[in-house]
Each structure stands twice: as C-alpha cells, then as structure tokens.
C-alpha cells in the first residue's frame, strides 16, 4: 500500500482570497495557552519543521503525480501561520523522505487539526512513515493546541488511502458531494482527540453534504 497522498481542492479555494479589501485587517490570530511539557513518543523524529529550502529539495517527492505542488503563497501561508503543522522527515544524506502539512482552525467544539497533505517519496514507502507523520500532527493538535479532533479529506475512489486512514483510527464522518473540482466526491474523515471525551465529533452524519455547507475552506 503506497498511495498515501491526499489531494485537497480546498487548498485551491483558499488561494483566491489573496486580494481582498479586508485582507490587511482581517487576519487575527489566536494562540491557545501552552500546557506543560509533553515528550514525543519515541521513533517519530528524524522529523523536523519544514523550511523554505525544503521546497527546493522535495522534487522527487512532488514529481509523484498524486502529490500536488501548490503555489508559493499557499506553502508560505502554512509556514507563517502553522509552522508546527508542517513537518518534514529527512533521511541520511539529508534526503527528503516525506512531509505533512496541516493547520488548526475552528471554534468551540469544532476546534480541530486538519491534514492538508501528507506524502512519502517512492524510495521510502512501506516504512510506516506516513503513519509517523500523521501521529505527529495528531499529537500537536492534541497536546499543544488542545483540539477536539483531526480531520482530512480524501477522494472517495482512493481506496488504498482510505484503508490506511482507517487503520490509523480515522472514520468516515461524512461524504462531500462533488468536492474535487466539482466531479468526484470527497470523504471527510475524522479522528477524535483526548479533549473530545465522548467522541461526539466523529459520530457520522446521516446525509451527504455539498461543498457549500462546509464550515471551513
């Protein structure tokens, strides 16, 4: 199983708001207070924060046709706003093995971590690297940002990826009709974190929704 990439068209949606009359003053950022120290669990940490120079080094990862290469402002917005959610795994010779990018957003009980993309280079597949990267993002969402759940979107046809996420504890929360470029349905998958004691966030919705009904872009 090596189809680990997510493709997410909402990433594109975000890009259109770059020139907007409200841009200069509309950006407000709230950081939650930090809890006391929390060691990462072992064996997930050749992993470090992604930095700009990695954009020049991720070629072999991104030439994979399921891995989207976004525009610069997209990557840099993630780096500027959620640097802890953008992590890269590096192997000997400083080779990039894979990376994950994500964010934290929402209000009240829908405060959650979101996986925008996770991808592993061909050479380093079948070593559970995607799992390590996912665990890391979950941990940051859980321990540092005290989010209620982590979610992600995946093409409804991408069975290998769906299976992998299920193995990692994600459930299909709802179906988003024609989410991908107005054609293919997307699945919104979720995993509850420790703050959601009753696991309310992952009770599947009965009916599918349309992209307009999504709370967050």
């Amino acid at each position, binding site marked *: 199983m090596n189809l680990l990439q997510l493709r997410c068209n909402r990433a594109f949606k975000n890009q259109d708001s770059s020139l907007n*009359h409200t841009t200069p*003053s509309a950006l407000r950022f709230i950081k939650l207070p930090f809890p006391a120290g*929390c060691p990462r669990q072992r064996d997930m940490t*050749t992993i470090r924060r992604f930095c700009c120079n990695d954009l*020049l080094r991720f070629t072999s990862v991104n030439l994979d046709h399921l891995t989207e290469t976004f525009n610069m402002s997209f990557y840099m917005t993630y780096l500027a706003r959620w640097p802890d959610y953008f992590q890269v795994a590096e192997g000997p010779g400083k080779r990039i093995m894979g990376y994950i990018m994500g964010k934290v957003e929402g209000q009240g009980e829908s405060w959650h971590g979101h996986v925008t993309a996770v991808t592993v280079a061909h050479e380093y597949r079948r070593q559970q690297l995607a799992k390590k990267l996912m665990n890391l993002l979950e941990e940051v969402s859980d321990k540092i940002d005290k989010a209620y759940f982590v979610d992600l979107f995946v093409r409804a046809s991408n069975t290998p990826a769906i299976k992998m996420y299920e193995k990692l504890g994600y459930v299909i929360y709802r179906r988003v009709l024609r989410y991908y470029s107005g054609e293919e349905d997307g699945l919104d998958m979720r995993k509850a974190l420790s703050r959601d004691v009753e696991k309310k966030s992952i009770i599947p919705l009965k009916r599918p929704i349309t992209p307009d009904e999504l709370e967050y872009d």
Partner: protein
Amino acid sequence: MASKFGLAGGIPERRVRPIWDAIDSRQFKNALKITTTLLSKHPNSPYALALKALILERMGKPDEALSVCLNAKELLYKNESLLMDDLTLSTLQIVFQRLDHLELATSCYEHACGKFPNNLELMMGLFNCYVREYSFVKQQQTAIKMYKLGSEERFLLWAVCSIQLQVLCGNGGEKLLLLAEGLLKKHVASHGLHEPEALIVYFSILEQQAKYGDALDILGGKLGSLLMIEVDKLRIQGKLLARAGDYAAAGNVYQKILELCGDDWEAFLHYLGCLFEDDSSWSCETINVPINPPKFVECKLAHLTDEVFDSCVENALAFVQKLQAETSNDSLRNPYLAHLEIERRKCLFRKNNDDGLIEALLQYYLRFGHLACFTSDIEAFLQVLSQEKQMEFLEKLMKNSNSLSAVPTKALGQSISLLKTQELIGNMFRLSVAELERSAVQMAELYCKNLPLSKDLDPQESMHGEELLSIVCNVLVQLFWRTRDLGYFIEAIMVLEFGLTIRRYAWQYKILLLHLYSYFGALSLAYERYKSLDVKNILMETVSHHILPQMLASPLWTDLGNLLKDYLKFMDDHFRESADLTFLAYRHRNYSKVIEFVQFKERLQHSNQYLLARVETQILQLKQRANNIEEEESILESLKCGVDFVELSNEIGSKSLTFNEDFQSRPWWTPTTEKNYLLGPFEGTSYYPKENLTKERETSVRGFVERKSILPRMIYLSIQCASVLYKDSSDTNGSLADPKTSSELKSLLERYAKMLGFSLNDAVDLVKGVSRGLKPYEVFGSDVIDWLNFAVFFNAWSLNSNEFGQHDDKCTPGSWHLVNSLLENYILSKLRSMGPLIQSPQGDLPILVQMVTEPLAWHGVVIQSCVRLCVPSGKKKKKSGSTDQCISLLSHAVRDAIQSSCSILEEVAVWSQDQIKSSEDNKIDILVSSLKRNGQNGGPGQVFHILETLASSPNETELGNQISQALRAWSPVDVGRRIVTGQSRVLLELYRICESKIKSLKSLKQQIAQV
C-alpha cells in the same frame, strides 16, 4: 475594522458592501458603476476613490488607476479633518503595490503616522510598508515606537527581527546584535517572555554572538519551559553545549535524544561529533547550502590519539548496540546506519578497517536490502572504500543473493538493491558488451516474472519492480555509447515506453525518455514528456533544467517562449508577494519564519537560472524579429538598447549566484546541463560522479551570461554602424559614424574576444585564417557560435572603421566576404556530414539551428540596415559623386551577402525538407527493424524481444485485467511513429524559419537591385 461604527472609510458600510461583493465576484463593470454613484455623493472621499482605483487597476487600466490613487492621496494630505483610517490606506496600498509604486503607499502611511503619532493600527500599516520595501532599519525604528506604546512582546520581537535582518541580509554590523540582545534582556527582566518563537529568536541572537553559555543559562531557567516538546529542547541544549566546547555534556544530551527517538539520524551524527570532539557537523549550517549537499558526512579525526579514538569507538558501539537491542520496531534503520557510520570512521582513521565496514554493509543488506532506499542509504559509506574493496563487497553481496527472502516482494526488492549497488559502484562499466547484454536480459526477465505481484495494485500506484526498467535503460544506453549501435538506443526508448504503457505516471521513465528524445532530435516529443510531468510553481526552479538547455538551442520558439514566460512569471510573482507573506509571519508571531522568508527570497533572486532566463527571453525576441529591422529596433528600444544587459555582463563576475537545480534525477550520461557523455568521451570510466559540480558550473554559467548579455547591445551598435556610410577621406578621419558608437562596438568586440580567450588582434587573425581555409574550424572548439557572432559584429564595425585595414582603400570592407565564407563553409560542411536524423541521433542539429537563428540572423540584421542605407527613401537629397560610388560599392557587397545567405538557407531548407518528406513508414521501419534481429547473435533487440513476447499473449489470470489490457495496447510501431513525428516537427520549424528568412532576403534583393 471595516465595520467599526458601521462605517467603512467614513462611508456607511451598507453602501460599500455591494462594491466589495462585486469586486469579489469579479464583476468590475458593475463595481465601477456603484462606485461612480457613491462618488457622486461623496466626491471627496479618499476611500471611495481608492475603491475606484482598485477596480480600474483590476480592469487593466493602470494609468487611470494611478491618477485616481494620486487624487485620493492628495485629498488625504490636504483635508485635515478627514478620517485617516487604515482601511483607506490599506486599499490605496494594495493599488499602489500592484502599480509598482510601493514608495507612494509608504509615504501615505508616513504622513498618516505623522498626523496620528500613537495610532497602533496605522503604525502597523507603516511597518508593513517597510517590510515590503525591505527597509530593515525603518522597520526597526517603527517597531521600537510601537513597542514603546505598551511594551508589547510582539513589537519588541518585530524590532529584534528587523535588527537580525540588517545583520544577515543587509549591511548592518554584528554589533547591532548586541543592541537586540540588550532589548530582549531588558524586556525579559520586566515582563518575561511568552512565546516559544520569541525564545528561539533570543537563542539565535546569542548564538550569532557565540554567547552559548548565556543561552544555556536561559534554557535551563524559567523561560526554558516555553519549549513544550522535550526533544526540541534537548536538541537546542545539545547544540549549545557542543558549540560551547562542552562535548561531554553535549554527548549526554544527544544520547538522551536518541533514547527518546532512536530514528534521529542527525542526532546520531551530532552524538558522534561530541564523542570525537569534532565540530564539523554543526559548522555547515550556512544559508545557501546546496540543495543536494554532499552525501559524505564531514568529519575530523586527525586530532585524536589511538587510545582516545579506540575508547570513543568502544563507547559509541556499546551505545549503538544498546539502541539496537531496545528497538522493537523492525523498520528503524537508524541504529544500523549508526553502526555503518562508526565503521566508516574507523576506516578513515586507521585505513585498515575495510573488512569491518564491508561486514557491516552486508549486515545492513540482510536487514534492509529489500527497501527501495537501500542504495541511497549506503552510498556515502561505499565512498570510503577503494575500487577493489567496493568490488569485493559486491562479490560478497552477489553470493548472498542466492539466499533471497521467501517473501516474493522482499526478494524482488533485494534483487533490485543488488543491481542498483552494481550500478552505483560503476561495475557496469567494467562488464563486456556480452555481459551487459546478458544483465539487461536478466533484468527484463525479472521485471516480467514479477509483474503478477502488482496485479491488484491501483494503476496510480507505483509497481513492484518498476525501477528495473530504468536500470535496463541505463545499461542499453551504455551499450549504445560503447558500440554506437543505434539499435540499443532505440531499445532503451522502447523499454521505457513499454513501462509507461503499464504505469503511465512513472515520472522516472518520463525524465529518462525526455533526455533520450532530446538526444534523438525529437525535441517536441521530449517537451511533451516534460509537460506530462506537470512541472509547476517551485518545481520550475528545480526541474526545468531537464528541458530548458535543449529548448534554447531549438527552433521550437513558441514552446520555448512559454517555458520562459511561465518560469519568469512564477519567480516575479513570488518576489512581489513574498513580503506580504513575511508580514503574515510577523503577525502570527512566527519570528523564525520571518528571517527564513527573506533569506529564501534572496536565494531565488540570485538564482542563476532566473538570470539566464531573463537574458534568454530577450535574445529569443531578437531572434524572432530578426527578419524585420524595424521590429528588431523596437525590441532593442524596449531593452534600452541593451545598456542594462551590458551592465549585467559587467557585474556578473562579482554577483553571488545560487544553484537550485535538482540534478539527482538526471540520467548517468548527462549528469549536469553542461555535460553529455553521449556527445563525446566519457570522463572517468569506473565510477560516475553524480555530485553537484557547483564550482565548475558557476564558472560556466558566469561565462555564458557574460557573453549572452552583451549580444543585444552589439546588435544595436551593429545596426548603428551599418546605418552610416563610410568614406575613406582624411578630413572625416575615415569615418562618418558617431565615433562613440564605433568605439563602443570596438570595446565590446575586444571584450567578446577576451571572453573567448584572445586579444582583438589575435581573434581577428584567427577568424581570417579560418575563413581562408588556413585553419580548421576545430580551432573554435565548442565556442563556434560565439566565434561566428564575433565575425558578424566585426564586419558591422568594419563598415565604419579601417583600423585593421579591412577596407583595402575601398568603401566596403573585405570582412563581408569573411563572414559570408565563414558561415557558408561551416554550415554547408555540417549539412554534408549529417546523415538522416532517423539513423544518427541529433549530433549537429542544435548547432545548425543556432547557426541559422543566431550569427546568420544577426548578419541578416546588418544586411537590412545596409539596404536601408543604400536604397534612397525618395525625399533624400541628391548625393555627391563620392557618396554615390560608396553606395554602389556597398550595395554590391550587400548583394553578395544576400546571395550567400540565401543559398545557405536554401540548402538548409532543402535538407530539412528531404528529411521530412522521406516516407514515414520507411523511417518507422528503420527504427523497428533495428530491434528485430531477435538477438540471435547478440546485439540489440534481446530485451525488446522479451517484452514483445510478454505483450503478445498476456496471461490475464496471472496479471489481472488492468495490466493485461495495458499490455494489449502496447504498440512499438506507435512509438516509432511518435519519434518520427517528433523529429519532423522540429525539422518543420527549422524549415519555416529558413523559408521566412529566404523570403525576407529575396525582398531585400529586389530593393537593392534598384540601386
């Protein structure tokens, strides 16, 4: 802010909202209409005007937008009572920025801040303006003012970052760091710190001043608890201790890190660094590190005594064994790589530990040999072994291969690793042709045999054994390179195309193919393969090198134009928006990203490829318009007659350049853009280095840009020189042209000659010698295009100078003949030696194209300028007798030149047409039949035969529906047809270029005939 008091820029929000909505939905006409209505009620509202300007700009009316903006600005300045709000200013700012007038936006904010000195929002806007202008000092001053208002931590950090930027990216001295440190210290004492990012910046300020002890004190104190993740904290602690020279304590810290996360390779290298008291693993943290750093881990061991070294190694080994024992997870490579690294250092220290390293490598293979990353994992370790020892390792590895894993996918992985190791060591170069063939056949068989393993995989997933075909291709290209039997080359193409039939997304195949097609003269097909890689955004900076150099020497001008345009647009967009993203990092208090973003922008701005693309874009335009002197002149005018580029050429020697191309995926036979072993002898027969030859490339790129960027100016000056008549009379000092023009062109010729390694005199002599057949063209070496350019511009200059006695007492110089014969002899001899493209891969085609589109084209421009001079435009005064004579002599020379150029172009056109016309089926047959020998007596076709056999009767139950279907669709004839079509398209473009030049020359001929 917009809705504060229900007002937006002093106007009720409900009136403004429809405008915003219209802009958002890109209904600009509608937006403009509502704005006009709004302006009739609020004619003096700067905000309404700013909105109007915004809309006009987005409608593509920059001039109107600017004037409306200036109007709004004036109103803001004039009307004292008006509200000076951030919404108005930020809207104006957006428009000014899009109009490339950042300074106007800044002055608006400066004015506003002067009026309302304590308004934080306006000050933030002003700070943002300075961020956009990269005015670090003013940023710092503004941030300090904001800090003073309420001692907010974030503003202090904005100031500190601005100081750091002055030191790192500006010309601020390191003493400034002391100021930053002082500011932080004072703030910490009174307010503490609350953001982990603030602490990280604090550490970096201290580190830059080598105050490691102070940083350690802070880390150990109360502030240290800001760092939430234990491992991150330990990493900082370890680094600070090591840099402070306390290796023992640092070593302990790294041990702790490794106990927490055993897979942290970097931590292990630092741990070893501590043990051996060697700081090399920390010292390489510079900004412009190459994107592919050397695989070899730097280390210093010479300072150690035998005893110390031994005890260090003992400690390290014990620790690694402990890590290995504690590892429950089988996929953790780090503890085993660590063992390899220790053995490697033993080799480096004692030089007699080869066997120990070989044994460790064999162990690593047993454990991880099935992984796709096996070879890249061991690459650095292999490098310390001698050739013989590498071979010894390989032999032992081969013996091991008898006992492959029982799991089929693992066994396949192990076999592939073995083959890749063989490739890595360079063993393939030692094998005989027969052995190589056998090896290719075995790999192809292995691929076919293992196809069923991928039966149930999604077609988008990569397949088991996919890499085998890439290795087969490498072997076949090598067979071609050795034997020059084209069959192997075509077989290599077929193998990859076959692979793509089954897995159409395999980018590794596509890259290899695009290089093969480029070499085969089917550049349009290569470009298609390139496009299918979907190279966009930042990948254009790292991946374009696969296709750009070939395209630059090709007649595919439209494709080249698009390639350059897209790339430059990406880079320029980034430069425009980067500062806004930097400001975003400021606002979100991710201060370390601020520094990173600014440095990254600088790195891209210094990209050698960016520079090259800018120059080449202009050269392309000049090539495209060369048949029409008026159009050529208007291009030159838009380039300020090439003055800026000459400046670039002057500066290039001292400019810092970055090299961001990722060469890892290039095929072995063309490891960098400058090298192509298929065109000549292979340098170094045993091991092919894939290292980034930056130094060598740097010299070559600088030379290239230096030469290319004076071309526009030389073309411009040549036109000028050819626009004035030369009269050999003593009273005018031999020249009627502006003496400045003539002397400038001469000095550029001198420079050009110098770049080619000659003085002007010697260069002229050499060119004369070659044109008279006294010297062979080979003396020009690989710079033949530049030499012929030189000759063309020399002739243009000679039109107005007799310094070299070019005129032989006549009005027209003998250099006309020199250029004509140089071009004619060279191009025609090339044409005669070039066989049909289908049977002889590219070779001289790119040179031929460049000859036609560069020197010959520039010569054509000079001719056009002369024709314009000779042909009376009607209103001119009657010329004197001596002028008449000169004109007549010049027009004679020009007629000859036209005749000569025409006949050259006609020959090229005929040659291209012959190639295009010859029967497609014949050509396909030539391609396919070169493989149809079925390899009975060796030779090409054996691998092809295996693949054909598989495809002819696929076993659907074994292979599954998807693969079987793909196999049935496999058609080598289609591949052949695509190659033929690809070549024809290139030739057709060349033919068209020739035809249009011929047409233009013929019309010149008619004009000059009237003289």
